[in-house]
């Protein structure tokens, strides 16, 4: 197993070398290998297809332009994640400036210290085909402020480790943990509110 991973890494290192030298089929291969991952990352952070496509295009323009700056210390996908996440966060911040009149209320992260608790129903996953419930999930993600959203996406949806997410976002591991905790609690509270509203859950 380990051998296979090493082989893949060597293969990629070889492709990177060729791509740097201007080999177009190597460049194509690198883009092909990583484009789905970056597109999904873009969708998850941006929450719409048009912006995800922009993130995708800009990420690979930068990759091809700066491949000679890639040190090889981290893996290529972590490096691409860093580029793509930065582009996405930049876009979200620009958008926020444009829709400045829409106020983003600060989330209340204090639920741990005193909210009433009710056990959630089992098998909530069955509920995900319910349109109203899906909408609630989508709105919760859109409401989650971008710094927290990026951490949640990288850690819980893209399965990066704390260390990898810290490297992608250029923040400390402790900071990743705090943001992840807050993101999870924010989303949890949104769902808790929704489940209460729906009423027929229990």
């Amino acid at each position, binding site marked *: 197993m380990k051998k296979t991973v090493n082989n893949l890494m060597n293969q990629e290192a070889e492709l990177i070398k060729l791509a740097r030298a201007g080999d177009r089929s190597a460049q194509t291969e690198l883009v092909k290998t990583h484009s789905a991952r970056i597109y999904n990352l873009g969708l*998850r952070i941006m929450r719409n297809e048009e912006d995800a496509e922009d993130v995708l295009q800009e990420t690979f323009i930068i990759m091809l332009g700066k491949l000679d700056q890639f040190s090889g210390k981290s893996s290529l996908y972590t490096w691409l994640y860093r580029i793509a996440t930065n582009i996405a966060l930049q876009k979200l911040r620009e958008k926020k400036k444009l829709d400045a009149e829409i106020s983003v209320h600060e989330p209340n992260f204090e639920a741990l210290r005193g909210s009433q608790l009710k056990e959630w129903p089992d098998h909530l996953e069955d509920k995900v085909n319910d349109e109203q419930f899906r909408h609630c999930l989508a709105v919760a993600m859109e409401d989650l402020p971008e710094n927290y959203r990026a951490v949640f996406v990288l850690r819980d949806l893209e399965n990066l480790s704390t260390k990898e997410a810290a490297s992608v976002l250029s923040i400390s591991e402790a900071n990743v943990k705090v943001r992840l905790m807050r993101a999870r609690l924010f989303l949890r509270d949104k769902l808790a509110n929704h489940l209460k509203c729906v009423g027929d859950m229990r």
Partner: protein
Amino acid sequence: MTHQHDDTMIKKIEDQLGSDFDAEIVAEVAEHMRDCPDCKIYVDSVKQTIKLFRVTETDTSVPEDVSDRLFKMLKLK
């Protein structure tokens, strides 16, 4: 949490809520949750939240037209 927790336990639980529940579960927190239904309910609801998003945010492949525009823009293929 309607009952009282001391700050060090809250800190530990918060820390756990920012980590992997399976791979990085701290023994002390696990033990606390066995004796504290409130914390167990709370942590379980957070786990359920994560699971729900993982179920709905499935991977999609890059649509063909998006891929075409990408390679065209990069002047590849």
